[in-house]
Structure formats: C-alpha cells, structure tokens
C-alpha cells in the first residue's frame, strides 16, 4: 500500500479489533500475574467499540484525522482505566500529525506512529525500563524512524516496528515495574511480561496486517 486512505485506516482498526478479541484471554492472564487481570477486557472492549463506531455510515467520507480522533474518543469512553487515556492520547496525536491530509504516504504514517509513541510517553510519564507499554512503543518508534529515513515501504516499516515491539515486550520480563499497578510488586514482577507491552506488540502487528 503506497497511499493510505481513511478507509484503509478503518480497516486497520478493524484488524486491531480482531487481534485484540483473539488475545483477550492471554492479555488478561498476563495482567492477572502482575496487575488486575483486566487488560484483555479493556483492549477488546476498546477496540471493538472503535471498530463499531468506525463502521458507522457517516464516517466513510472522513479524513484520516477524523478517523484517529473518532478512534481516540471511542476508545477512551469505552475503556477508562490506564489504557484509555494512553491510547486515546496516542490516537489524538496521530490525528494531529496528519491534519489536513486526505491520504497518507508511508512517511506520513511513520510520523503518525512516532507521534503516537510520544503521546503515550507524555500522558503516562513512563521511562524506558519502567516495565510499561513504553518499553514496546519506544523501540518500535525508533525502528519506524530509522526505517523511514532509509525510505522503507510501509510494510517494511511496520514489520520492523512489530519486531522491535515484540523484543521490547519480551525485555519487560526482566524488569522491575515502577509505573502502573505493578509498580508495588518489586522483584515479584520479574519474569513476567508487562501486559501493556504485550498488547502494544499485538497492536502493531495488526496495524501491519490491516494496512498490508
């Protein structure tokens, strides 16, 4: 895909919703170990609401910014929790970064992606190593940045982002948490993947699939 339309973004969110529905139980399990066992529910509920709202007939004529903003609001209001503001901020920033465009190039999408990661950092104030979704988002955004610079295709960009996010998620296993619910766990968190980092990797993979 060389040019991304609003309709493509809508398909992308549908793909994300599908992936989250499939991963619901797995993400709840991960969250059960170090959190409150609801991350899969939040992601599934949030993205299924996004997909439903994006399937409304009046959306089809929308531009990419509207799609991202609709996704942001839908996710936020359906979910609340920690993930609500984090993802909502991400999508709002993505929307802002592509403002005025009706179709997005791979490079536009890369910028939107980087804005998403930045949004989550701004909202949650987590650092790399805090054992949060940031540990997946930041390396993914770095991968996107360097792939973009190398003029890679959208598929390549998102594949590199997915790989980086997966590695980042895996790396959270070794970490002690210092943000979110598991921040109180200390050493007991070691050995367990952060659920938000895991869902981030799933989300990015689904982006690739949805835009593929």
């Amino acid at each position, binding site marked *: 895909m060389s040019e991304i339309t609003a309709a493509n973004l809508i398909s992308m969110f549908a793909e994300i919703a599908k992936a989250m529905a499939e991963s619901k139980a797995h993400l709840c399990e991960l969250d059960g170990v170090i959190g409150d066992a609801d991350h899969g529910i939040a992601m599934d509920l949030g993205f299924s609401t996004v997909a439903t709202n994006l399937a409304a007939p009046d959306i089809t004529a929308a531009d990419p910014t509207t799609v991202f903003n609709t996704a942001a609001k839908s996710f936020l209001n359906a979910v*609340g*929790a920690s993930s*609500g503001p*984090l993802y909502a901020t991400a999508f709002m920033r993505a929307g802002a970064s592509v403002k005025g465009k009706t179709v997005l190039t791979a490079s536009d999408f890369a910028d939107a992606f980087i804005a998403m990661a930045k949004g989550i950092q701004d909202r949650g104030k987590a650092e790399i190593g805090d054992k949060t979704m940031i540990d997946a988002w930041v390396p993914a955004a770095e991968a996107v940045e360097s792939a973009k610079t190398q003029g890679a295709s959208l598929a390549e960009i998102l594949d590199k982002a997915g790989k980086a996010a997966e590695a980042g998620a895996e790396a959270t296993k070794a970490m002690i948490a210092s*943000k979110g619910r598991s921040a*109180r766990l200390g050493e007991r968190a070691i050995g367990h993947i952060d659920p938000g980092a895991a869902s981030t990797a799933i989300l990015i993979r689904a982006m690739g699939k949805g835009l593929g």
Partner: protein
Amino acid sequence: MKTKKIINDGANAVDEMLEGVLAAHSAKVFALDHSPRSIIARDGPRPGKVGMVIGGGSGHEPSFLGFVGKGLADAAAIGNVFASPPPDPIIECTKAVNNGAGVLYMYGNYAGDVMNFDMAAEMVAMEDIEVRTVLTTDDVASAPADQRDKRRGVAGNVFVFKAAGAACDKMLPIDECERIARKANDRTFTFGVALSPCSLPQTLKPNFTLGEDEMEVGMGIHGEPGISKEKLKPADAITDELMDKILDEMAAPKGDRVAVIVNSLGSTPLMELYIMMRQVKKRLDQAGLALHLSLVGNYCTSLEMAGASITVMHLDAELQEMIDHPCDCAMFRAG
C-alpha cells in the same frame, strides 16, 4: 472451571447494577440522563457549597457510588469493573455539582484514575470550574512510608471521603475542604490480606492464584499482588501483623482517639471480621488508644474476594467532628 455469579451478560454487569442501584435508592441518588454513569446525590449540591466528586472502577461496592449522598460525596463517576471511569462521566459529575465554590476530586491513587481525572480536570478548567484533587494513599502495603504519594487508596477512602464530605457539607471554603481532606488522608492507614481471588464478570476466571494454605499480605483491591505470600495464620496473628505495621506508622501518643474499619474484601463474613475486631480492640487498648468509632463490614470490596483489611484513622478534634458529622447515602448512614 468458571466462577458462578448471578449475572446476565458479564459485559453489561456494571450498567445493570447501576439500574438496580437507581431502582433501590431513587430517593437518594439519580443518574444524569445524558451520562448514565454519573451518579448524583439528590440532597447535597447546593449554592455556595464545594462540590465533591469521587469515583473509580466498579466491583468495589459499596465504594464508590454507595457513598454519594447528603453529608458525603455529591457525585460518583463509575468505571468498568476495576477500571477508572473515563473523563466524560467525571466531567459531567463535575458540572452537575459545581455551584461556584469549586469542586473537590477524591479518589484512590491508581495510574488509570489519575490520568482520567486529570484529563477531566483539565477540561473543566477550560470552563472556569476550579478543581482540587486529593488522592487517597492509605494502603501501607503499597510503598514505603517515605514514598507515601506512591501508595494506593483502599478502604481508608471511606474515612477520608467522609471527613472531606463533612467539610464540604459544613459549607467550608475549598481551601479548608482540601486541607481537611489531606489531613484525613495523612492520618489514615490501611493494611489487608487476601485469602482467595475474585473473578471479573467478563471472564469468570479467578484473577490470581493462592495455595491452599496461603494468604497474600498487602493484596490490592483489584487483586494486584501484595508484599508477600504467607502461610495462613490464626486471626489474632493476622490482626497483629496488620496492627503492628499500622500502629508503628501511625505513632499515635497514648490517650489519642482512633476510628477503625474492619473491612471485608467481599466474601469474608461478619463473623471473621468481628473476630479480627476483637484483637484490634486489644491492640488499641495496649497502645492506650481510645476507639471512637468502628465500621465492620463490606466497605471497599473486590467483588467476591476473600480477605479483610484493617483501617485506622488517627483522630484529632477536627477529624473527630468530621467523622461524627451525619451523612445519609444510598449505602451508608452515619452520625
């Protein structure tokens, strides 16, 4: 194996619960038409009074919506099970209880709640509503004493909200309400143990596992792991472990007065709570502290989790007055 619950579709549990609450307590509370997860006190908000908005995830009933009413909170924003409400219902609550004297946000210190309430506060600030936020951080298990602001808010909420709600009800200015709320939080300490897990209505799967003879010390009210797993001990030994830590941190001089909550996390029955209460009283007697008031029962729960927490609030004359101030809520009456 699935946990048995009396529910319909788990995805609708929160909204159906709210319908039931409104059916049962229509004399005390109502939901905003345009924001059904914003629960407002019928008798409470009034001209010149600081509005008080509380909130948090569902599954902790009677927290939070049960504490909406005259003399306590003016409104509660309701989230999904164990999930902070999003900004929208918080904003709607804020507008509904704003009477020009400012609005106090009070809720437990959880990342999700902080982000959502802060977003709401930013948005109502644009409409010139002054918001002050006081986070509850009474859970001594959740961070060392020198990092009090990292601690979670748990059952101590009830006392902290009650003190702040009384200050608002007495028509004190927002600075005073905030000061009293902060003092109430600073002087409130909670510590608990869990004996068995709960299940979210959407999954019906236990949200953690504990061995047959184990308890989790310092368990969070969403089933977040605590400080340590220990072998289940007799009630007196459990109570001592909790009271040792609380009394140590509280460091109250002999002769002072305290208020106590022995709180069930859900399925632990009154018999066990009162057995704990017996030992709490012994420990207070030994420490030379007078028991001014006790609440024993379900105050801040985690669905049907088994376990209990002990909350002690170190009173002074002002807090005592606030705690004794009458309140009349959907699920809580006092004073």
